[in-house]
């Protein structure tokens, strides 16, 4: 017993050490962003890797100035609204849709599935103007409307992911629910959804990241006269002649990724192991 535990501990130790090293290397680029967010801009280009010391250290000045320059908090509000709204809508609608097309198999659902796949393949350049035109003529150029655009544009990936994972849910469990008197919506919400939770969380994370960081789509679709998201706002730190205020940029980047990291960490614990275990024989 001891030897097994010992070897296990050794293995764990090795794992820890190895992954810690890799992690540090992995984080380096992000570290650079953080470090430089405390530097004065002229020094960032010259000495990107040095720690902010002495004359190039400006403390939180970049953060303060950046927040002011781009109207960070307003942009943050819209970003939050759009991201939360769109991701919720996507998760809800596409998981339902994916369930539908993987349980009702016919020509139409299969066709729709492949359309979803296609939508991921299409280069954005091909649809960007037509998308902005369509959204505009339907009056979707506001934060509420853009959630619908995101749903439509993000449906491909989400449906694809959900449909893929739907296969590992044993059918018998859903049948049991039907017998217990569940209507399809109840079966879905009370049984399928909880079992798919890890997938939900994963898809949620991926979509959140996409929407939170997305620049082009909101630029094209949103009514810029009224609304700005963080990525749109951050763009103003780039000057007309290709010069970029890296100090403010880095600071704003740090602020922009913080919420997503927090969100991710919070979601981690829902990615639990083997939810369907013990449910069926076979």
């Amino acid at each position, binding site marked *: 017993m001891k030897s097994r535990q010992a070897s296990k501990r050794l293995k764990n130790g090795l794992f820890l050490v190895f992954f810690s090293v890799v992690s540090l290397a992995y984080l380096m680029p992000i570290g650079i962003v953080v470090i430089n967010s405390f530097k004065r*801009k*002229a*020094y960032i*280009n*010259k000495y990107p890797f040095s720690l902010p010391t002495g004359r190039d250290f400006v403390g939180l000045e970049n953060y303060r100035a950046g927040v002011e320059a781009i109207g960070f908090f307003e942009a943050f509000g819209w970003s939050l609204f759009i991201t939360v709204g769109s991701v919720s809508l996507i998760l809800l609608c596409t998981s339902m849709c994916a369930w539908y097309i993987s349980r009702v198999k016919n020509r139409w659902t299969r066709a729709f599935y492949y359309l979803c796949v296609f939508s991921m393949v299409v280069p954005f350049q091909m649809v*960007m*103007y037509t998308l*902005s*035109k369509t959204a*505009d*003529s339907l009056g979707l*150029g506001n934060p509420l409307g853009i959630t619908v655009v995101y749903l439509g544009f993000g449906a491909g990936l989400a449906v694809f992911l959900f449909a893929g994972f739907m296969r590992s849910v044993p059918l018998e469990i859903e049948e049991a629910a039907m017998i217990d008197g569940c209507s399809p919506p109840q079966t879905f919400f009370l049984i399928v959804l909880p079992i798919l939770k890890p997938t939900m969380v994963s898809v949620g994370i991926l979509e959140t990241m996409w929407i939170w960081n997305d*620049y*082009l789509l909101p*630029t*094209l679709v949103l*009514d*810029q*006269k009224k609304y700005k998201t963080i990525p*749109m706002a951050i*763009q*103003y*730190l*780039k*000057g*007309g*002649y*290709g*010069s*970029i205020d*890296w100090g403010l940029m880095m600071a704003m980047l740090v602020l922009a990724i913080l919420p997503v990291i927090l969100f991710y960490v919070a979601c981690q614990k829902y990615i639990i192991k083997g939810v369907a275990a013990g449910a069926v024989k076979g």
Partner: protein
Amino acid sequence: GRSESSSDSAAGQGKVYYLNFKPEQKDQWEALAKEYTRQTGVKVNVVTAASGGYESTLKAEIAKSDPPTLFQVNGPVGLSTWKDYCYDLSDSEVYRQLKSEEFALEEDGQVLAVAYAIETYGLIYNKDILRRYCQLEGAVISDASQIQNFETLKAVAEDMQSRREELGIEGAFASSGMDSSSDWRFKTHLANIPLYYEYRDEGITSAAAVKGTYLENFRNIWDLYLNNSTVEPSLISSKTGDDAASEFALGEACFYQNGTWAYEQISGYEVADEDIGMLPIYIGVEGEEDQGLVTGSENYWCVNKKAAPQDIQATLDFLEWVITSDEGRQSLAQEMGFVTPFKTFGEEYTPDNPLVKAAEEYVQEGKTSIGWYFTTMPSDQWKNDLGAAMLEYAQGTGDWDKVKTAFVEGWASEYQARQ
């Protein structure tokens, strides 16, 4: 007139939607718009496209139901894309107030675009370093004013480069950053000079094909930049305009090719404002002693022809207000730092930008300004190809013939592709 539109009923009242090109001036435009609205009740929206995203934003926005009424093009080539959307400004106040018709873009007798900002570029230099150089033993010159042609510039630069330790600098020229976000300094601005001389020889202002008469001179100045710089030529692709700006700002280089707009970036560091000067870019052409700086505009206003009539009117009114009212002039000149081509801007509206002052001095000295002919370059593709060839030449992976090919043959084929 303004009084009419402001007295219109709310329903018939037009509104202005300005799609601004320059992120640097975003705040000033918004403030100005607010002020105008406060005064007249006419709604003015200002949206600023992100850097590098103007064309795509404009393409998307102008197709929407509520399109920009005021947008901008960067010159004749840009205009050709948008000419179908340009309202004829012949009768407008902005056109009438131009100091010279030269500052408007016309086609088929229609005035389609009006420049609103005049900018100047050349070789920005650090007077302090140059002064220190002149005091050195055996300096090639004794005063900055002696640099009047390419030979002198070359001699000075090479001497400075070899004595950079003594001067406490890292190179005569700031790095010629060819990063794709900043290579316009060379592939367009520098290439403008040989182009200018060729046009001058031919007596034209645009061309379907070029000969590349002055390409050797172009090579000389490019070599000079590369060989007497803070970095190895092989590393320039990793350098940006910002790098160069900070090298200059931190006093590490003496010369830095850029324009009046660079003032923001370089002021406030190691170089004092009064030490910032600007020289013409000499490339070794006969009689270049009389050459001045490169002055022109890349910023032209266009009014959207397809907007609602009352919106067009409101936009014209707004523009008039901008160039005639105190608030407008103050903002344009002092806050945005533009030199404008309008008669309404007198002496008092000169920005306090040492580079602008330097530019004015040259004009007053009677030197010939060089125009911004790069706005006639056939396409961005041409510029990109030229830039790529220049870079390859610089880092030693390509030869000068490629630059020639890109310049001469590329011009013809791109010009053709445009049609």
